[in-house]
């Protein structure tokens, strides 16, 4: 599995596994390329304090549990107008690692998207707000 050239060394981390299972992500409607830009792509000139954070900002957040996508939408005003997108991840889509967050817990994972994968093509909007 290959990742974009601009990913740092040792990223994704060794303990990330091939992507699989159901994943939820907050997206626009209609789903667009911009919904899958990493923070590194949005902030190309910013520096991050350590290699772990630098690697994490090359990934995308997804949830295993739809309730947690909903919870994030409730708490975070910038995401309130987003829709819940869903897909079934496959190994060729990239690498995945549980990266728990304090409020949404173990459901939160970071997904490093493999080169050539276009998530906007296979994510589907689950519901209208």
């Amino acid at each position, binding site marked *: 599995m290959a990742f974009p050239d601009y990913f740092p060394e040792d990223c994704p981390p060794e303990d990330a596994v091939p992507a699989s299972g159901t994943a939820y992500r907050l997206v626009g409607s209609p789903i667009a390329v911009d919904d899958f830009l990493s923070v590194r792509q949005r902030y190309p*000139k910013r520096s991050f304090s350590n290699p772990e954070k630098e690697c994490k900002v090359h990934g995308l957040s997804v949830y295993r549990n739809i309730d947690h996508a909903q919870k994030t939408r409730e708490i975070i*005003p910038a995401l309130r107008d987003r829709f819940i997108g869903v897909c079934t991840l496959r190994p060729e889509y990239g690498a995945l690692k549980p990266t728990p967050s304090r409020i949404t817990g173990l459901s939160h994972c970071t997904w490093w998207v493999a080169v050539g994968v276009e998530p906007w093509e296979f994510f589907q909007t689950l519901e209208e707000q």
Partner: protein
Amino acid sequence: MLPESTVLGKLSIIETYEFYDMPILFACRNKAGHVYLAVWIDRATDNDTWLYVALSRRRFQEIKAGRIDLHDAFGKPEDELALEVKVYFDPDRRPEIRPVPARDLDEDRLPLPGDYLDPQFCAREDVWSFSRSRQHTAGFWGFQLSFHYPKLYSGRHVLQEKPFRIRYVAEAKPFRFESFEKLRIDLASQASSSGQRKTAGSEHSWGESYFYSLDDPRCLELIA
């Protein structure tokens, strides 16, 4: 994502509560020690906007203990003022900061009511307050050890109250107790036999105090 070279000072994130591609709800502190709670409130093609509120230590603990929901944490700031902070993707563009009086805060730019930080994840030392004082009681010097901690809430549900222990810390008090073989004595478990115990409770918290005939409480600390 943190604003740089602004009146907020040199900020660093001290706790991240929610992460979505980046920290989106977090506490940060500047070099002068001022703590802010921040939440992501808007996004645009070339910037993100955040809402910052300054926190006293007490307020910070209350939010983390789940006694104040996130809506009120931002919507009812102690100083009755919040800051909208716009950070551009291009670091060469200076961040913009706009003070917003609490009465002018837009509900759409606040977390919905009823969501709390989950205190299960709060650092224990931040949840508890722990006081020690020297006292002369019943003919000898000792110390009063009191601690006071919130019931742990997750939303509206009371979580099981967590056990605690207290230990001696050798480094802080070397060679003054003859009984140093008890370096890790569990004072809490001995309270009923060797200390006087008082308990008190209320809707939101409960506390206990103990009295011990030891001469220097500085050698004690809470451990998880």
